[in-house]
């Protein structure tokens, strides 16, 4: 398989809901050569690439605006503060028009879930209480609850999954009950691609008096999300998976809940007054943002949001439905390859895990890389799910706005080549 194939089948890409090949031009890294081939980046569920606009926003911030924020009275400090707070407003709008006080910047989804576990969880989970998660959680939305349950003598329960990789809701009315204090569920699985019926689950949880935390790390980058409509109590996601810089995450929380929570990280900016004996805390959202925040990256994240809005989240979702459908079609055609997760593209995202009857995912990944294709292989920080799937690892190709049908074709052809290589 040579890269010529790529250009040959490029024409197909016009069928998609927007022109990915034009979008590719905005992403400088896509011009990189990997082992002599053009980079075909299909590791977007791990982290997305960044458009030039976002990279330039960083550059511009450091060249014109850089300063510490909030407490400064000089021009740069004020400009930097405004730019930082502007992103908060933007995030608040982006996820459905919530209040700025409800948006807390963290270092990533992982810190967001940990903040809730340590602050809210530590105060509100007691002996005999139940925390309900699913079998498909990422470690970020799993390990904090495993350890909190251990510490508090609470019970951690899981919603099982069916063989097609969706949640098995048969026993949901037992799983969510009056003991349930928190339902912590992923919006979209990073392994199976499954989009979960979050809104219904949240409603059911609320009926039982439980709060809800949604891990939106894989959802917010790929589809319109309205946390108000979902009525989620907490919602978490990461900038780096949605065209923004690394080191920035978001925790959305309902104001009345956040207000009652004790702070998590302690230091500058999150306190109002402190003596050696006594501390009073600042207002939301600052109460949860101690120390110098990741100012420049938050400012550049703002640009990433704008970039996504210009394309349109609805269009992105449609694009990924199309590309998932095509990829599932192409991959299932290949003898020996099994897709892990739902085959119906309308109930899933474009993170597509597959296994090969004969070849280990690590060998698949290494081989594809030798042909310029970046996919991920392993347990994808979802070890319990691997056990459920009765596998140790999967290969995962995850698509985004700059991927087109040509990428799918090239992937499928290279997978076939890979099988010939290893099976002899």
């Amino acid at each position: 398989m040579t890269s010529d194939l790529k250009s040959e089948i490029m024409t197909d890409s016009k069928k998609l809901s927007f022109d990915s090949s034009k979008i590719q031009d905005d992403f400088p890294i896509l011009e990189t050569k990997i082992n002599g081939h053009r980079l075909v980046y299909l590791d977007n569920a791990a982290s997305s690439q960044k458009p030039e606009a976002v990279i330039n926003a960083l550059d511009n911030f450091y060249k014109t605006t850089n300063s510490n924020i909030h407490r400064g009275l000089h021009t740069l400090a004020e400009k930097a503060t405004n730019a930082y707070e502007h992103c908060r407003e933007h995030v608040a709008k982006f996820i459905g028009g919530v209040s700025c006080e409800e948006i807390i910047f963290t270092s990533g989804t992982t810190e967001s879930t940990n903040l809730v576990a340590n602050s809210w969880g530590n105060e509100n989970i007691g002996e005999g209480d139940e925390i309900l998660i699913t079998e498909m959680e990422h470690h970020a939305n799993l390990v904090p609850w495993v350890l909190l349950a251990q510490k508090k003598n609470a019970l951690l329960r899981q919603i099982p999954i069916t063989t097609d990789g969706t949640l098995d809701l048969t026993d949901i009315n037992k799983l969510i009950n009056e003991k349930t204090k928190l339902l912590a569920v992923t919006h979209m699985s990073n392994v199976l691609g499954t989009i979960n019926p979050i809104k219904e689950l949240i409603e059911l949880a609320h009926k039982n008096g439980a709060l809800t935390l949604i891990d939106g790390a894989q959802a917010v980058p790929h589809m319109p999300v309205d946390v108000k409509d979902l009525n989620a109590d907490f919602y978490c996601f990461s900038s780096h998976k949605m065209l923004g810089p690394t080191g920035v995450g978001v925790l959305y929380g309902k104001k009345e809940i956040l207000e009652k929570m004790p702070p998590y990280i302690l230091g500058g900016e999150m306190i109002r007054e402190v003596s050696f004996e006594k501390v009073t805390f600042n207002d939301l959202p600052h109460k949860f943002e101690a120390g110098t925040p990741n100012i420049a990256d938050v400012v550049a994240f703002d640009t990433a949001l704008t970039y996504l809005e210009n394309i349109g989240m609805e269009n992105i979702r449609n694009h990924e439905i199309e590309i998932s459908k095509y990829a599932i079609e192409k991959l299932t055609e290949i003898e020996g390859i099994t897709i892990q997760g739902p085959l119906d593209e309308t109930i899933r995202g474009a993170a597509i895990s597959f296994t090969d009857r004969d070849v280990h995912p690590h060998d698949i990944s290494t081989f594809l890389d030798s042909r310029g294709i970046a996919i991920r292989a392993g347990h994808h920080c979802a070890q319990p799910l691997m056990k459920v799937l009765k596998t140790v690892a999967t290969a995962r190709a995850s698509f985004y706005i700059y991927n087109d049908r040509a990428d799918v074709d090239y992937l499928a052809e290279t997978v076939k080549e890979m099988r010939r290589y290893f099976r002899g």
Partner: protein
Amino acid sequence: MNSSLDEMYRDIILEHYRYPRGKKPIDKVDVSTAGKNPSCGDEIDVELQVENDIIKNIHVDCKGCAISVASASMLAELVKDKPLDEVIENAEIVRKMLKGEEENLPEEFGDIVTLKGVRKFPVRIKCALLAWLTLLEGIKNFQNGDGRRNQIVSTEEQE
């Protein structure tokens, strides 16, 4: 093009991967150890029949990538009929080669030298090491009179 790929997956390695040695179960098991590579998910079971401190028979069952399977297969070939002490030394030589601290292997190591190609893929070194570390653990337990200890060796603790 792709020379480093072909260097890692040498024909010999792919051949061991396709037709691994030591797959046949053994009757008398004196040493039994399991090993795994948590970050990759590779898993291995190593069983030995030991007589007078000599490995009379070996059974290796490795579920993992081509590298870990091939490495386990080569191990099975090398250590059969060898005294335990020599096997310990051999394993150390392999470890050094994989870490780049040893270039030339004794003739008797045969195909094993082809594992060198893994060095270009640092994340895969663990895969090649798995069988050897598991074997070493088994021998250690055996020498402590505890050959069937039910503890799983992890490459990440031992590297």
